[in-house]
């Protein structure tokens, strides 16, 4: 390894590479409490050229490489699968390269966070529209594009962040550097459009979970932030799951360009007040589900009209009860939008009790069908009571299965962050190895259930990508084609080795 290290050090210089055991452990985990992979080397490259050189060495030496942006993924996507290999810490590349104010296209290095980019854009009265994932204060634009990310706000209006992608600079696993969209034409002055000049190659890398290339430069369409916004929160009536779904469908059918529309299950409302997370809802007599929306407009009159239409759907047609306008009245929508709580919305669902962390599933499903899936989650939970109770004996708390906020994305689809929160094997001074075994088994079972709903994964990482292959959920020709693309671009399976089980043979 010393010789390889030397080669890599020559590329980035010694300040930006480490094989310290301490540093390697710092990069060995992501959000879940279960998976760990300790890299041999961590590198902080400065540009596409360095990454290209690194990947060439990795190919020569047959060393797997995994890119890591904000490291906020929940499926083991940005740490090695198994120990070894190189982690590319993309956070050194975190600058805005250019803002084309006329055409409202911003070009950034891929390691920049959604928080930093939007802070920059606000000085021009612009924003990214889709604000990336719920972890956007840290999560990188590159990670968002690699996962079709949603969840950080604005997804009902703008959809996944990949919708606004204009062009990409990507380092392919063999070290080649390509540009996509308008930038495939060497005479193009500035990125302006994704589609054209042949097939949408940028699309190949959207949601690729880091297997097909390392994104280094990203151009996004950005938008003027409308000066007016309204945000309201409502208590749902009985059958809150079905009613919330109906509201989402009604809003779409009416064609209202709602910015965010989110449903919070009754179990979350109940647990949120029981565990002290949501003092604003403690006064609610019935702890039913909650739904809230944000709508933007360019004038007061426009806003008023849109609010009227939404109230007609939510209050009059679907019998929801509005909460007061302030956050203290329970109006979480105000916190979510006005205080940028959209980047912290999920944080308080984790760590509800000490060491309780998420083993989750993040997927898209049609808005008309999610209530059925929520009942299936209840049944899954009951079916695994015996396993769950093994945690209770040690921790005094049963793992919690449910879905986090369910929100409208583009089309008539919703994002479902479901799963269960559970405990790590280290608990109160002792290591309970059986926890890891049960967690892994239950997580796989959960992922299998969700896959068999026909759900569409967007953040897949290690776990969801492998499950899709293991239970043969992919249509055979789709998987064959995907594998052929991978093999063509990455014949040695250098990049994110282990995802989608491409390494198996």
């Amino acid at each position, binding site marked *: 390894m010393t010789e390889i290290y030397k080669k890599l050090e020559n590329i980035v210089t010694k*300040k*930006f590479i480490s094989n*310290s*055991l*301490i*540093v390697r*452990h*710092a*990069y*060995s*985990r992501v*959000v879940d*409490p279960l998976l*760990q992979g300790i890299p041999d080397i*961590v590198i*902080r490259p*400065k540009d596409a050229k360095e990454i290209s050189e690194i990947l060439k060495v990795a190919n020569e030496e047959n060393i797997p490489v995994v890119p890591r942006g904000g*490291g*906020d993924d929940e499926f083991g996507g940005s740490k090695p699968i198994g120990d070894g290999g190189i982690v590319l810490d993309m*956070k050194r590349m975190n600058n805005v390269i250019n803002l084309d104010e006329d055409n409202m296209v911003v070009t950034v290095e891929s390691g920049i*966070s959604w*928080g*930093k980019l*939007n*802070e920059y854009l*606000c000085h021009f009265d612009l924003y990214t529209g889709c604000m990336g994932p719920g*972890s956007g*204060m*840290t999560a990188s634009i590159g990670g968002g594009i690699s996962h079709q990310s949603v969840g950080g706000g604005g997804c009902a209006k703008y959809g996944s962040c990949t919708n606004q992608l204009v062009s990409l600079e990507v380092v392919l696993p063999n070290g080649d550097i390509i540009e996509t969209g308008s930038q495939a034409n060497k005479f193009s002055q500035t990125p302006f459009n994704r589609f054209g000049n042949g097939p949408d190659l940028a699309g190949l890398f959207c949601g690729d979970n880091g297997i097909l290339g390392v994104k280094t430069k990203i151009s996004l369409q950005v938008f003027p932030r409308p000066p007016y916004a309204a945000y309201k929160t409502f208590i749902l009536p009985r059958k809150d799951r079905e009613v919330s779904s109906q509201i989402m469908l009604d809003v779409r059918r009416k064609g209202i360009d709602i910015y965010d529309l989110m449903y919070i299950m009754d179990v979350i409302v109940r647990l949120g007040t029981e565990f*002290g*997370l*949501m*003092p*604003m809802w403690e006064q609610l007599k019935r702890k039913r589900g909650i739904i809230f929306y944000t709508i933007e407009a360019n004038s007061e009159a426009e806003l008023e009209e849109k609010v009227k239409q939404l109230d007609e759907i939510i209050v009059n047609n679907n019998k929801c009860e509005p909460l007061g306008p302030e*956050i*203290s009245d329970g109006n*979480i929508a105000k*916190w979510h939008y006005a*205080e*940028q*709580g959209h980047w*912290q919305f999920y*944080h*308080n669902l*984790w*760590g*509800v*009790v*000490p*060491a*309780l*962390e*998420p083993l989750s599933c993040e997927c898209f499903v049609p808005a008309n069908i999610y209530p059925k899936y929520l009942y299936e989650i209840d049944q899954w939970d009951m079916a695994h009571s015996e396993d769950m109770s093994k945690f209770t004996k040690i921790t005094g708390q049963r793992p919690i299965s449910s879905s986090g906020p369910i929100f409208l994305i583009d089309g008539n689809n919703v994002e479902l962050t479901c799963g269960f929160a559970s405990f*790590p*094997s*280290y*608990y*109160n*001074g002792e*290591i309970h190895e059986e926890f890891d075994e049960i967690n892994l088994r239950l997580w796989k079972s959960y992922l299998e259930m969700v896959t068999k709903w026909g759900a569409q994964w967007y953040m897949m990482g290690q776990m969801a990508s492998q499950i899709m292959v293991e239970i043969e959920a992919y249509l055979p020709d789709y998987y064959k084609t995907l594998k052929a693309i991978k093999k063509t671009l990455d014949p040695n399976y250098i990049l994110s080795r282990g995802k989608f089980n491409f390494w198996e043979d």
Partner: protein
Amino acid sequence: MTELKNLKEEWKAIMSCMGCGDCGYSIRRAVGRYLTCPVKESKGEEGFEIYFSRGRMNVLKSVLEGKLPLSRELAEFVYQCTECANCTEVCHETHNENIILNTSKWIDHYKVWDALRKDLVEAGFAPLDRHKDLVDYMNNDAMKNPYGEDFAKKFEWASDFSNIKEKGDLVFFAGCTMPLRQQDTLKNMMKILIASGMEMALSKDEWCCGSIGARIGEYKSVDELMKHNLDLFKNMGAKTVFTACAGCYRTLKKDYPELLGEELPFEVKHITEVLVELLNNNKIPFKPEEGEKLKVTYHDPCHLGRHMDLYEIPREVIAKIPGVELIEMKRNRKHAWCCGAGGGVKSQFPDLSKDISKERIREAVESGADILTTSCPFCIGNFRDGYEEIEPEIKEKIQVIDVIDFIASKLK
């Protein structure tokens, strides 16, 4: 494998860190949050994740799980932390009392770093070289201060003031930094107090409060220092002990009761709490206001602000000084950027400390302030060191001055 006695007590905090990384990268304009970790930012492009909380928590998970031993190498990394507690702040804050992050109930990063440092000391991997010198000086009977100065030198400044009493209700604890490095500020403090008609007592047998020992996890020596000082205060008849040092303030007011396991029999105040009372009672005789107002910005010392929740009183003091317009830096109060001196960083990694201080000075200039003031001798010392090296065009725009010196300059 060492016992990890202290880290194990912090297992809830360590295992509850979900690794969101906001302790390293958070920018949330709507609530005034612009990044978190001064050490990571100072490292710039070399800012591997080990330099901020998430990376360290990942390492500590491995340590607790028995996958990674404590080591000198680990110590070299983890002592590059000013213990400013900004990571705790960002980890806890929803910015709204109606929405609570439950992790705020069991994650206190400062306590985790403190536990880790204690275990590193117990395992023999710390103190680091320079820290060991400081502890040795502190324990040396001829010194009893971390600066390696002769014991008697600490009290030279007081010889100008014959009216300082030996006993009394109100006792001043001078600490080590001001008497040994910033005597003029202490003399200015006396001028203010004398002009205000205030009397106080000072012991010429006080020892270091032990702050440096506590911050680096070397608690053996703190115990002896604490007991000596507490006996002293008792014998002097102290009902209130005040100090002009933010580090001493935290140590006396927070660490001593925690180490003792009981409340202290006297009140502990910071100089700004004393000054605000004098100002509220119009006891400080100022010169008449003249000329244009000076724009003054206040830097929150971590040991006053995030550690002790003392944010508004120093601002009240500054706002009451004639001819002053108090303005805020972009990052203030709970979001304030650390000066870079705390947690033993100044002594062991002086260049890192200075880099951080320069960033804060530049931020003060960006605010439009003519004067950057604060109320901590450690911050002042580090700002002065950074100021010496900073670009001339920045120097031209701002002065760095302790709030005591600033008030003294306005006395009649």
